[in-house]
C-alpha cells in the first residue's frame, strides 16, 4: 500500500476542513459558493443621524481627486435645496431630506462586495480590489456604459461631452490613499463624526452595537450589510431608509447571481444545439432518402406489376393461339385422313400386305 494510515486520515481532514477554511485549490464540489467579501477590506460607515450637511466631505473629495471646481463654492449650502446625484466631476453629493428636522445623506459609490458594474463590464475595466475599493481602468474602457445600466445605486457617471476619450467616473474610495495607509479624503475631513472608516467586520460590529445601545435613535438595519450581496459602504439611519431616498427593494442577491443563470446556459447551447440540429438535418435527409426509395420501390413495383400483367396476357394469348393452332392441326389431320380414306377405301389391306 502506497498510502499510510496517518496520511489517509490527514487527507480526510483536509477534505473536510478545506472548503470550510476556504483553502485555495481545494475542491468545492457542488457546494454553494458564497463570497462574503475580502477579509480585512476597508469600509466606511456613514451615520446619517450625525451628518450636519456642511459639504466638507464634498470639498475634500474634490481636492484629493483633483476635480475641477464647481460653479458654486462648497460653502454655498443652497445647493442642498435641490436633489443632486453624482456626476462626471462630482464623486459624492450630500442631499437634504426634509423631515421634522432636516436629515442629510451622503451619496457616493457603495463599493459592493460583488459589484454589478464589475460583473457587467465586458473588458474588466472595473474591478473590486482586495483592499475594498471598486476601481476603474480607463485604459480598457470602451465606453459602452453597461456599468451605469447595471448599477443599482445609479452611481457611475459619464463624460458625455468629451469627444475623444470620455471616461466613466465614480468615487474610488480614495484607493491610492488606502494603499498608503491613509483614510479616504471625505472621512478625514468630516467634522461631525458622520463618517468612520475601518475594516468591514469592525464597522458592522460597531454599527450593530450603536443600534443596540441607542434603539430609539436608529432603525434596526445596517444598510449595505446585505443589500445587493453586501457593500463596503455601510449606513445607519434614524428614519426608514426608504424615507431618506435609499432604495429598500434591491434585495440581497448580488449582481453576478442575477446573471449566472443565462451565462450557465451558454455551454449547454454550444454543446447541445449542434448535436440536435445535425440530428434534425439527418432526419430530414433520411426522410427524403426514404421517400425517394419508396418512390423507386413503388415505380419498380408498378413496372413489375404491369410486366406480370403483360406476361399473363401474353400467356393466355399464347395458350389461345396454341389451342387454335392445335385445333387447326387436328382439323388438318382429320381432313387429311378423310381425304386419304376417300382415295384408298381399304387401308387395312395394305397393312396386311406388308
Amino acid at each position, binding site marked *: 500500500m502506497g498510502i499510510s494510515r496517518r496520511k489517509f486520515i490527514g487527507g480526510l481532514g483536509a477534505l473536510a476542513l478545506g472548503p470550510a477554511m476556504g483553502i485555495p485549490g481545494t475542491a468545492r464540489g457542488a457546494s454553494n459558493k458564497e463570497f462574503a467579501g475580502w477579509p480585512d477590506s476597508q469600509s466606511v460607515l456613514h451615520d446619517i443621524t450625525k451628518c450636519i450637511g456642511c459639504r466638507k466631505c464634498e470639498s475634500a473629495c474634490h481636492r484629493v481627486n483633483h476635480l475641477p471646481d464647481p460653479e458654486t463654492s462648497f460653502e454655498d449650502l443652497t445647493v442642498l435645496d435641490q436633489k443632486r446625484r453624482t456626476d462626471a466631476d462630482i464623486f459624492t453629493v450630500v442631499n437634504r431630506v426634509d423631515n421634522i428636522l432636516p436629515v442629510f445623506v451622503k451619496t457616493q459609490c457603495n463599493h459592493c462586495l460583488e459589484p454589478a458594474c464589475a460583473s457587467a463590464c465586458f*473588458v474588466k475595466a472595473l474591478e473590486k480590489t482586495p483592499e475594498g475599493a471598486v476601481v476603474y481602468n480607463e485604459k480598457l474602457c470602451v465606453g459602452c456604459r453597461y456599468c451605469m445600466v447595471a448599477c443599482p445605486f445609479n452611481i457611475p457617471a459619464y463624460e458625455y461631452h468629451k469627444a475623444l476619450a470620455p471616461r466613466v467616473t465614480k468615487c474610488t474610495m480614495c484607493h491610492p490613499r488606502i494603499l498608503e495607509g491613509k483614510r479616504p479624503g471625505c472621512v478625514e475631513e468630516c467634522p461631525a463624526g458622520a463618517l468612520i472608516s475601518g475594516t468591514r467586520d469592525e464597522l458592522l460590529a460597531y454599527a450593530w452595537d450603536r443600534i443596540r445601545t441607542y434603539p430609539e435613535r436608529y432603525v434596526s438595519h445596517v444598510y449595505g450589510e446585505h443589500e445587493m450581496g453586501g457593500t463596503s459602504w455601510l449606513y445607519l439611519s434614524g428614519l426608514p431608509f426608504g424615507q431618506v431616498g435609499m432604495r429598500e427593494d434591491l434585495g440581497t442577491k448580488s449582481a453576478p447571481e442575477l446573471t449566472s443563470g443565462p451565462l450557465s*446556459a451558454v455551454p449547454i*447551447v454550444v454543446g447541445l444545439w449542434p448535436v440536435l440540429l445535425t440530428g*434534425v*438535418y439527418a432526419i430530414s435527409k433520411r426522410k427524403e432518402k426514404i421517400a425517394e426509395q419508396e418512390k423507386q420501390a413503388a415505380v419498380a413495383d408498378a413496372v413489375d406489376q404491369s410486366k406480370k400483367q403483360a406476361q399473363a396476357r401474353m400467356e393466355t394469348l399464347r395458350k389461345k393461339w396454341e389451342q387454335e393452332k392445335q385445333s387447326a392441326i387436328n382439323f388438318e389431320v382429320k381432313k387429311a385422313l378423310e381425304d386419304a380414306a376417300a382415295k384408298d377405301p381399304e387401308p387395312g389391306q395394305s397393312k396386311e400386305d406388308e
Partner: protein
Amino acid sequence: MTDNGTHTDRKWWTPFNVIVGIILAAGAILTVMRFTQGIGAVTNLDNNNAWGLWIGFDLLCGVALAAGGYVTSAACYIFGLKRFHSAVRPAILTAFLGYALVVLALHYDVGRPWRLPYPIFVSQGTSSLLFEVGLCVFLYLTVLFIEFTPAAFEWLGLKKIRALVVKLTLILTIFGVVLSTLHQSSLGALFMIAPSKLHPLWYSGYLPVYFFISSMFAGMSMVIFESTLAHRYLSRHMDDTHHREAPGVALGFAKAAAFVMAGYLGIKLIGIAIDDHWRLLTTGWGMWYLVEVIGFVAFPALLFAMGVRERNLIFVRWAAAWTVLGIVLNRLNISVIAFNYHLPSHERYVPSLMEIGTSVFIVTLGIVIYRFITTRMPVLHEHPDYSAHSPEQKSI
C-alpha cells in the same frame, strides 16, 4: 420610387434619390457632430439614462429583425424545407446588412469605438452578458459574410472559391443558429442585472427566452415584410422561381409565426403567473403591457392564422408589418420606456431629434446598400450558371 435599373438612361432626380440624399447629408453632419463634440452634443442621454434609442432601436431591434437570416437558412438547410430556398439569399443579405449596421450604430453609441475589438482581443470580461453578445455578434457577422459570399462570387465569376464556400453551407447554418440562439437571448439577459430599474411586468427570469423566441417570429415577419417591399420595388430583378415560390414562403412563414407567437404568449402568461404579477395588469403600466402583448402579439398572430386559413396574402403581409412594429415596441419598452420607470418624469429619457435622425440615417444606409446589391448580384434571382434546380448545383 423609380428604378429603371439600366445604367445608360438612369434618372437622378427621382423622389427616392432626393429623400435619400437629404437623409444621407443630414447623417453626415450628425456624424461629424458626434465625433467632434461628443455623445452629449447629439443625444439626450444622461447619467441615469445611459442607454437610449441607439441601443434600444439600432442594437436591440436591429439584431431581432435581422433574425430572418438564421430562421430562413435553418428552415431550408437544416429542416429541409426546400420551398424556402429562393428566400434564403435575400434573408441572409438582410441579416448581414442588419448586423453590419448594428456594429456601425455601436460606433456612434460607445465612447471610444476604436476599442470595440477590446473585449475579444485585449481584455475578456467573461462574467458579462455583453461580452457574450459582443463575441457572438462578431462571429455571426463573419458567418453571415461567408454565407453571403457565393452571391458575390457568382457576380464576379469566381467559380472555384464559390464551390468551396457552398460546401460549408450546413456547418455555417448550424454555427449561425448556435450563435443566434446565444446572442438573441443574451440581449434580453442583459437587463437581468437590473431588476430594480426595469418594470416588473417586463423584468423576468425568462427574459432571455422571451428574446430568443420573439426573434424567431421577428425574423419570419421581417422576411415577409421585406419580400412585400421587394416585390413592389425590385420585382424586375426577380426570376420566375422567386415569383413562383414567394407566396408559398409567405404562407409557410405566416403559419410558423402564428404558432410561435401563440407559444410566446403562453410563456409570457407563465412568466406573469410565476412572479404573481396579475395585479400589476390593472395599473397604467399594466395597460401598456397589454397593448404590447395583446395588440402587437396576439392580434397579428390571429391575423397570420386567418391569412393562412384563407390563403389571403394581404392579411399575411399586414400581420407581418404589424408584428415588426410589435417587436420594435417590445424592445423599446424593455430598454427605454419601462426602463427607469421609477424615475420622476423630468429625469426620464426622451430621444433627441438628432438621435432619431442618426437612426433614420443608418436605416436609410441599409436600404441603399440593399438596393445596390440586389440590383447587381444574384440575390432575388438565380445566376443562370448555378441554378439550384440542377441537382449538382446546390447554391446558397
